[in-house]
């Protein structure tokens, strides 16, 4: 008998799509997707800035705490100067610093979270290694379908009192899977691919307002570096110059020279030595030059005084070709600090 039952399901095509989506979501165990990070681009030393992060967060088969980690300069003491709370349809609460003894689940019990994050992501878009991942964990564990969680942070910047340009970065994860590698089960919506964790990098944050004058520039490939970054008048201080960074007229020079002046705590100005030989920067490798000085001797600073800053440029033997900050002729400032 011919069936008279012809039921045409309205919008059957749409229902099929929906079924596929539901199927995909059901297959999803846990995922985090950082939708946005709202963060200022400038700040002053000691200021408390608000940062708002929106995360698409899913824990369907497991109960897990949410983890938010922030990449910060070590001197900013993030554990003390960063606070976090969250709001979401499934609950509100706070984050606290993850204990240093808690191991990151995907590391096989080998590393705690800060170490695992540094091994996996390093210092992301920064050039100075003096950074750490500060890890926070939510007060409650959840089992939840895909939910938008708003994380509200308050960060007091530059606890070490110095100016800085730094590219902050964030990782969101959960305590069940940690930094587990993608298993391909998660829907991708280009350009985002989200899985058990996500890394999000922000543009350079400029922190100014320190009296010391020097800027710890994490963001830019260093044309020159001074090692150690924290040193005083009676340390050995090494100045490095990489002529391959930024277009400059010293590239290919056999010898270059440090041309520096220094200022002490009383405002007295000292010049570097007259003898060029004492300022010669020899090539340590192709187009990379270096000189190490003992500032007290180099600038002839009396014992009663200590230096506050050094201003320097790199020159050729004639002194006519000058390379300074960002390859301009402006001097680079190094502050003698020890914090």
């Amino acid at each position: 008998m011919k069936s008279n039952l012809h039921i045409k399901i309205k919008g059957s095509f749409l229902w099929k799509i929906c079924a596929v989506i539901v199927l995909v979501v059901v297959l999803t165990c846990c995922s985090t997707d950082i939708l946005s990070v709202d963060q200022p681009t400038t700040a002053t030393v000691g200021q408390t800035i608000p940062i708002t992060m929106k995360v698409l967060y899913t824990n369907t088969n497991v109960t897990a705490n949410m983890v938010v980690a922030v990449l910060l300069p070590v001197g900013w003491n993030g554990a003390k100067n960063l606070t976090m709370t969250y709001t979401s349809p499934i609950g509100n609460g706070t984050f606290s610093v993850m204990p240093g003894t808690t191991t990151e689940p995907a590391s096989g019990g080998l590393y705690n979270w800060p170490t695992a994050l540094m091994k996996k992501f390093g210092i992301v878009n920064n050039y100075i290694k003096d950074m750490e991942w500060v890890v926070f964990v939510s007060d409650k564990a959840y089992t939840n379908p895909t939910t938008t969680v708003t994380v509200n942070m308050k960060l007091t910047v530059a606890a070490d009192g110095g100016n800085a340009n730094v590219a902050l970065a964030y990782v969101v994860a959960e305590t069940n899977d940690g930094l587990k590698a993608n298993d391909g089960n998660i829907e991708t919506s280009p350009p985002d691919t989200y899985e058990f964790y996500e890394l999000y990098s922000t543009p350079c944050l400029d922190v100014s307002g320190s009296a010391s004058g020097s800027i710890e520039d994490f963001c830019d490939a260093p044309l020159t570096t001074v090692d150690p970054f924290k040193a005083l008048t009676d340390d050995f201080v090494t100045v490095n110059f990489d002529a391959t960074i930024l277009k400059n007229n010293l590239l290919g020079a056999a010898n270059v020279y440090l041309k520096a002046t220094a200022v002490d705590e009383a405002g007295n100005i000292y010049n570097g030595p007259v003898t060029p030989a004492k300022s010669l920067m020899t090539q340590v490798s192709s187009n990379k030059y270096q000189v190490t000085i003992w500032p007290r001797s180099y600038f002839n600073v009396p014992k009663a005084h200590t230096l506050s800053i050094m201003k320097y440029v790199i020159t050729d033997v004639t002194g006519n070709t000058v390379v300074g900050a960002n390859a301009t002729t402006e001097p680079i400032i190094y502050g003698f600090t020890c914090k």
Partner: protein
Amino acid sequence: MKFTKFFIPCILLIVMVWASCKVERVNPVNESVKDISGTWKVIKATRNGTDITAYNGVDFSQFNIVFKSGTYTLNNRLPFLADTSGTYTLNDPQYPMQITFTPTGEPVIKTDFVYPIVTGVRNIDLTFSANPGCNSNIYIYTLQKVN
């Protein structure tokens, strides 16, 4: 009697053998007092773990420390744990583990006294932060006696 003829010489033999064993007293060898008198120069310097001895601009050829009768003298000064001459003591003359420097008019500075023999020669390894320098920078100078 046969027994006596045999027994008495036997006893005598035993007594003679026994008496010939000397108890040897082993006298404890006295550990020598460590004498660091003399002029010492830096043969190796590290800063925060990096060897800076041969860095361009670093010249240890003129710098030396003279230890004599409880005093030390710095000649041709370079960054060091003391910025002026003064007195020094070792915590134990035979088994020194720590050296204390007292620069004239300044607080004392203590550091581990590491005194290894390297290729037959005594070195002194001193770990310190420069005085006055930033205490987050750690230097190790290896000293060797020149005369």
